[in-house]
């Protein structure tokens, strides 16, 4: 498990990160969401040790992170770049060797990754001869080629077409499924909502929400239900219920407990036909807008 503990970092008087703490669990894909300038890149650079925090620390399995740990991480920086004039396969092997892989092992792994990402035929082309989307795939391969024990990816999906997003996702899933923590940032909330097991929402250098989707929803919404019946007016009379929205046969209400909600359903069945009764789920997007404000 990767934990970020009470990290502060300022740049020339501007505090980019304010006492942030969150966790990236093994085997989970954790989305790191926030508007531009929220501090995602700074936080990721600090995790990788490319930048030093003013205070606070990064921990791996509860102990302070070491250079040895970091050398095993896979990292995709915000600003993309590999050697423009070097062949794709060759630079993957080079990077893997810097991370401690053997030449032969790195070669096999690079081949497999390029194949998986649909770049198999371009292995001996120079990076600059690839399209931007393909360069992006090569960049992802570069983060994965040394079989990282954790992945930190800054906007891995930006610039990818939907097909490429899917193939990339598969590759990242493989890493998570192998037990590694995977952290990736994105400002495309819909992508994150769909892909992530867990989320960290950052705004103005602060963690505004963190946890699994359900946990975040639970923390940021009161349980709500929606009932569709003939005449929902009776709901107002039931104890422990607050009606939020009412329109003839449609009512949205908050209940202090599940039992209170059940009483509404029982009452509704006795009074007429229940067309629909379900918990109301707020889209993450709404919560996001709310928490980053």
């Amino acid at each position, binding site marked *: 498990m990767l934990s970020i503990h009470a990290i502060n970092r300022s740049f020339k008087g501007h505090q980019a990160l304010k006492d942030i703490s969150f966790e990236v669990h*093994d*085997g989970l894909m954790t989305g790191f969401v926030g508007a531009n300038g929220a501090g995602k890149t700074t936080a990721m*650079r600090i995790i990788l040790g*490319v930048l030093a925090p003013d205070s606070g620390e990064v921990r791996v399995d509860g102990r302070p992170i070491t250079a*040895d740990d970091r050398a095993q991480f896979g990292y995709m920086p915000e600003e993309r770049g590999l050697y423009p004039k070097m062949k794709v396969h060759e630079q993957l092997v080079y990077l893997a060797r810097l991370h401690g892989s053997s030449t032969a092992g790195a070669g096999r792994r690079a081949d497999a990754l390029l194949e998986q990402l649909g770049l198999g035929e371009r292995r001996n082309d120079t990076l600059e001869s690839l399209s931007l989307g393909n360069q992006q795939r090569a960049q992802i391969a570069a983060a994965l080629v040394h079989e990282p024990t954790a992945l930190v990816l800054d906007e891995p999906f930006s610039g990818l077409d939907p097909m490429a997003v899917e193939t990339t996702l598969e590759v990242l899933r493989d890493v998570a499924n192998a037990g590694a923590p995977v952290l990736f940032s994105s400002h495309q909330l819909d992508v994150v909502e769909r892909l992530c097991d867990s989320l960290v929402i950052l705004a103005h250098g602060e963690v505004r929400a963190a946890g699994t989707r359900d*946990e975040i929803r639970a923390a940021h919404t009161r349980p709500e239900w929606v009932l569709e019946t003939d005449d929902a007016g009776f709901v107002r009379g039931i104890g422990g219920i607050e009606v939020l929205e009412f329109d003839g046969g449609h009512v949205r209400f908050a209940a202090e407990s599940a039992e209170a909600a059940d009483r509404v359903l029982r009452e509704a069945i006795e009074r007429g036909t229940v067309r629909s009764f379900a918990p109301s789920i707020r889209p993450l997007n709404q919560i996001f807008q709310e928490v980053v404000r």
Partner: protein
Amino acid sequence: MSVTTPAGTAASAHNRRGRTGFWAATGIVAQREIMIRLRSKAFIISTAIMLALILAGVIFSSVGPALFDEDTTVAAVSAVAPALQGMDGIVVDTLGSADAVRQAVQAGTVDAGVVQGRGASGLLVIGDRETPSALVQMLSVTPEVELLDPNAPNPMLTYFIGIAFGIVFFSSAITFGQTIAQSVVEEKQSRIVEIMLAAVPARAILAGKVIGNSVLAFGQIILIAAVVLLGGAVTGSQLLLDGLGMPIVWFVILFTVGFVMLAALFAAAAALVSRAEDLGTATSPLMMLVMLPYIAVIIFNNNPVALQIMSYVPFSAPVAVPMRTYLQTQAWWEPMLSLGILIVFTVLVIGFAAKVYERSLLKTGSMIKWKDALKA
């Protein structure tokens, strides 16, 4: 919310792999620097052209003068012709009259003419536009000359040897200095350096670059030295074999150490900028440092005091020490002292450059000042 997967143990098993060691990382970086350069057609071709030019220069310096050593044709009237016979490099064309001689000179069919004259020598030398000084000298009475230092190097030759050392130093240092600078800024500009820094220490990257490029520069200098010495052996040039052997050895030794110092400085300078376009500004002070010995040796090649000072200044020692070795104006221990000074200075410079490099590598935007790079 913690999820434990069976594969989690596999991930922690990876952790034991550890970080790539400093020298292993240095080796991997150096290997790439060398490989990229050796694969570059431009590099191979320019090296081949340079070696060919140097070889041509060596061959020309020994056989060239003979090619231009033409005989001088002199027209003479029969009365003075015997006096000219048997002179080295003079072909005598005996004509009937002084007028015929004058016409021949004017027409350019002969290089000069000699007729009877009224002066003390009884000869009158006729030239077309300028005094045929070689002929005049041969016909003059030469006083006896005693040379106190008959083995002293020819000043012209000294001058050219100085320039040759200067040019080789200058061009190799600039070529490889620029190469290392470009390689640093390429990594900075493309941000691949962020990925590298997460894996290996900045100093290992710097060391790899300096070592890789130094090996290449050393290889090139050795090739040049080999071509010069072999060319000298083949053409039997005494100058190259006797006089220049030791100076070349000293040059190679001092250049190699001096290059390591310059390479570290070029890498540090390049780390100050974020874009290849700004490289010129960042490296221009270094260009001056590299040009200094080249210019100084041209100006001071005949000034023993200046050369002595230059031989103790780390930036000019690689040129000045070989010059002094050639001129034999130094005690046996002086080159050793120069080398010692250079090595100590190089170690200090590497420490300084590593600091600047390490601290500037992740800073982007406009060019960082040297001062600020050290402060941060």
